[in-house]
Every structure is written in C-alpha cells, then in structure tokens.
C-alpha cells in the first residue's frame, strides 16, 4: 500500500511539473468553467419568444416590447424550437382567448411566468382569459447534458493519457530498471500507476457536477459510471505508454484513441435508437449512455448495473487481448 501511494504521489507531482501534462489534467476543469459561464450568458441576452405565425399582429407587437420574437409555423415547430439549448418560451393560441405557453421547465425561475404576465397585461381589460402552462418534459438544456457528460468522459480519457505519458517518462529515463531492483512487484507498479486514472476522473466528475450545479445527479451512480469507464481508459493509457517510445509518438497514438472516443460519444448522441446496436461493442458507448442518463437523472440502479456490466465485460475482453503486450512492454 505504501508503494502504491508513493507511485501515485510521484506521478501526480511529476505530472503537474510539466506543462503538457498539467494542461491535460486541467483541460476538463477549464472547459467546464467556460461552460458554466456560457450557459447563463445564453439566457441573459433578453427574453425570447417563439410565437405562432397566426397569433395576430397585436400579440406579436406586444411580445416585441419585452424581447426577441421568432415567428414559427404551428405547434410542432414551436415545441422543437423550445427544446433547444437556450431559454425561449413558445406561445400559441388555441381559441380566441385561450393561449398556451410552452416552456422547457428548466428556465430561470424569474422568467418562467413572464409569458403569462405579458398575455395577462395584454388582455387586462377582458375577463375570460385562460392561460395553460405546458411542460414538454425535457428538464435540462442540452448544453448542460451533453456538455457535462462529454467533459466527464474527456476527464476519464485524459487521465488515461496521463498514465500513458508517465509510463513513457519511465521508459525514456529507464527508471523502470531502477524500480525492478527494489522489492516492488510489477503488479504494485501497475496498480500504483493506475491510481491516477481513477482519482482524476472522480475528482473532475464531482467538480463538473458541482460547478454546473446539477443537484439532482445521484453521486453514487455518477461515481459508479465514472469508475467503470476509467478502467478502459487506464488500459488505453498503458497501451499508449507501452507502444510509444516518446511523448510525440504518445500524442500521435492518442489521436486514434480520441477518434474512438468521439465516435462512441457522437454515435450514442445522434444515432437513432434503432441503429445504436452498431455501437454496442464500444465500452465508451455504454459510458456515454450511462453518463447522460445519470446527469438527466433518468436512470435506475438496474440500468446502471447493466451498463457497468457491459463496460466491465468489454473492458475485460480488451484487457485479455492486450495484457500480454503490456506486460512485455513493461520489462
């Protein structure tokens, strides 16, 4: 245990002393802070309204006094507009005085009633005004959902990269020889080197949830998904370390890895449900699905268990295929 922690501390110390590695460690944190500032700034522009074209000149003019107005055709179009990332309210007219306000549900509290108030003001002289409030289900803006999940996934992958670069450092300096003439076992070396690949993603995932104020996220589920996904990144880190003779080669090899990661993430997000099975082979596909559902808080422990099982199964497969090469590369 003493040796594992010593290896972990050494890796951390050594990593933060090199610009490239420090950058890799801090990138997810910097990005999510950027995201944090971006999300409110979208909302803060002014009020935005999506109105049905047929709603009538006077109503449009009235809404234009309060903010930016987009004219769209029909309820469907307006609903589609409302679910997009920014805060925008849709207003349609059912009958004479029956207006429906369509909102996404995650708008700032102060703004959520603004549309009703405008309609209320507009019709204040008339009595029978019915405004109903319709929440179309999505509870969170897509920037938050995809931003948070992709940054966590990125933190996981980059932590693997940190492992890879640390192994390359040992190889280049030949320090592995010095370690092999101490009582340290090879397994201790491997586990010690892996620790940074578990600790960094956990710390950074918690940071993401905290900075984006995702209060509904179940921390236990988040950490389960993060830790399971980290295992695959750790194996990739070792592979990169073993196969790259220097840092430049390591970064070149990382590009392949990033391709694999982005394919899994983008595929999971954009492919229609019917074709997603094309991605079942990728453990990072399951990570993506799991992380997104954890962040939107639409997941049960049973599902988490299933995703984790997929990830672990595929990870073990990759481990079995690569263990020999890793072991050989570390001597």
């Amino acid at each position, binding site marked *: 245990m003493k040796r594992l922690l010593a290896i972990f501390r050494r890796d951390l110390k050594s990593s933060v002393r090199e610009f490239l590695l420090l950058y890799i460690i801090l990138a997810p944190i910097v990005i999510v802070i950027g995201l944090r500032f971006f999300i409110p700034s979208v909302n803060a522009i002014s009020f935005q309204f999506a109105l049905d074209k047929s709603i009538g000149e006077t109503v449009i003019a009235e809404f234009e006094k309060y903010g930016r107005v987009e004219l769209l055709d029909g309820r469907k179009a307006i609903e589609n507009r409302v679910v997009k990332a920014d805060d925008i309210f849709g207003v349609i007219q059912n009958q004479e005085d029956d207006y429906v306000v369509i909102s996404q549900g995650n708008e700032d509290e102060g703004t959520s009633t603004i549309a009703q108030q405008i309609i209320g003001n507009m019709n204040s002289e008339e009595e029978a005004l019915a405004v109903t409030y319709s929440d179309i289900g999505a509870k969170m803006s897509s920037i938050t959902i995809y931003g948070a999940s992709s940054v966590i996934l990125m933190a996981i992958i980059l932590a693997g990269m940190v492992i890879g670069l640390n192994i390359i450092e040992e190889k280049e300096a*030949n320090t592995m020889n*010095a370690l092999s003439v101490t009582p*340290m076992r090879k397994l201790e070396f491997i586990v010690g080197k892996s620790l940074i690949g578990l600790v960094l993603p956990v710390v950074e995932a918690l940071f993401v949830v905290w900075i984006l104020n995702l209060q509904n996220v179940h921390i236990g589920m988040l950490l389960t998904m993060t830790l399971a996904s980290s295992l695959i990144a750790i194996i990739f880190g070792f592979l990169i370390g073993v196969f790259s003779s220097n840092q430049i080669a390591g970064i070149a090899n990382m590009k392949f890895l990033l391709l694999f990661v982005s394919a899994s993430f983008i595929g999971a997000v954009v492919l229609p449900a019917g074709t997603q099975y094309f991605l079942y082979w990728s453990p990072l596909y399951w990570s993506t699905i799991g992380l997104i559902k954890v962040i939107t808080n639409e997941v049960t422990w049973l599902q988490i268990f299933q995703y984790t099982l997929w990830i672990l199964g595929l990870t073990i497969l990759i481990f079995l295929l690569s263990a020999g090469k890793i072991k050989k590369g570390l001597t």
Partner: protein
Amino acid sequence: MISVKALYHSYTKDESYAVKNVSFDIQKGEIFGFLGPSGAGKSTTQKILIGLISLQKGQVAIDGMDIKKTNRALFDKIGVSFERANVYKKLTGVENLKFFSEMFGVPTENPLKLLKMVGLEDAANKKAGDYSKGMLQRLVFARSMISNPKIWFLDEPTSGLDPNTTSIIKGIIKERQEQGTTIFLTTHNMHIAEVLCDRVAFITNGEISAIDSPRNLKLKYGEKLASIEYIENAILKKAYLSLTDEGHKKKLNDIISSCKVETMHTQEATLEEIFIKITGKELK
C-alpha cells in the same frame, strides 16, 4: 555471497554470446572488480545478476539463493548503481531518493545525508533534469545506498567524474566494505581496480581470462618491463618489452642496434599492462 557458474548470454538467442562461460565466486565483504574494455560484457553480466536480464544458461546464486527462485525481498539486501543515470528528471535529488526509499521493506538512509556524502547537498532541492552528467552519476550512486545494501552492484561508478569526486566515491566504497558490504564493481579504470579491489576478473569478448588479486597478478605476470620509444623508418614507435621473455629480449636488442632510441626505462608492470599482456587487448 555471489556465486556464478558457467554463465552464458546471447542477446540474439543464438551462438553469438555477449557473455560466455563466465564463472566466479565472491566472498562476503569482498570487493570484486570486473575489468574489461567497452563491450566486453561487464554490464550484461551485472544485469543478469540483478535480474534485469533473464538467466538463459548457467547458475547464479546470491546470498545462497538461486536467482531463478528468488522472491522480491532479496532486493531489500541489494543496491544497484547503474552505468547510465536513470532518475526522474522532474523530481529533485531529495525527492528521487525519498521516492525510492518508499519501495523498500527495510529501514532506509536519510536522503540528505547520502546526498551530502557525494557532495550534492547544494543541489538537493534542484530538479535532477538540471543536473550535470557527473551530478547525475553521483545521484544514482547515492540512490544505490538508500537501503543500506549488504550486496552492492556498482556499474562504472566513477566514469566521467573529476579526480576529486572520484576519490570521494572511492572512500565511500572502501568504508562500506569495512562495514561488511559485499561489492561487485564494474570498471575499465585500472587504477580504481588496483586500489579498491580484493580480487579482479579480466573480461574480454564475454570471456574471463584471469581472476586473482591485483598483487598476485603482478607477482605472476609482472616481470620487469622495458618501456622504449624509438624511431624506425622516420616513425616514432613505442613498445613494452619483458626483460625475461626470450623473444622480447631479442626484439629489444634489435631495436637498440638498428633504430634510434628516444627514451627507455624499466618499470614494474601496472595492472593495465598485465591486462594487455594476458588478454592481448587495450582497455579502452
């Protein structure tokens, strides 16, 4: 303490051996010098002894244990100073030693004390990446003492060091021996071997050609030599000739009678000359 029998090693796994039929025994508390020119197989032998290269053929026992069956705890008793400085460049000297001290299961030395011994106290908190070659060499040497090893492997511990530092390192090695440490020392510096080693082995092309104490080697091979510089066909030449060997005596006569002799003196053979005589090779 260390026993090696019929050791062979081929990097190419064929008949071309980097180490060929090497056998020797090192007693407890002895300094055993492994002497040979570059590429002779010194480092290869050391690497096999400490398990960095797996044993292909032959038998090696360290502290009475067959190295094929050792457990990791054996390394609590062993210290290794490498030929090429292998340290963490982004860690300071002290941090390097502290990190390694955590790997051992036995009480370890104070890093600062070790650095002071090798004259690195001022650089203790500087990153090893900023060290000079000689400083790195001393850092690796200091690191090899971190666990107070009973058996100490030193691969060229003084190569590239200035005479002053070399004599400090020599002093440390001698002192450790007096405390009972067994030392395997690889070098092509004959002077070091002569003053430090209880016994030396001459190795060339992977084969040992002599093992004995420097004193015995001198008694055995160190007959009086004449060192002569002469001009033959307008070229300055140099020769070491034995005053007991018939062939050499005749050659000496020829030179004196037919060439212009520039300088000539007789001397006791140095270990270096004995090495050349036995192996037919220069040490460089």
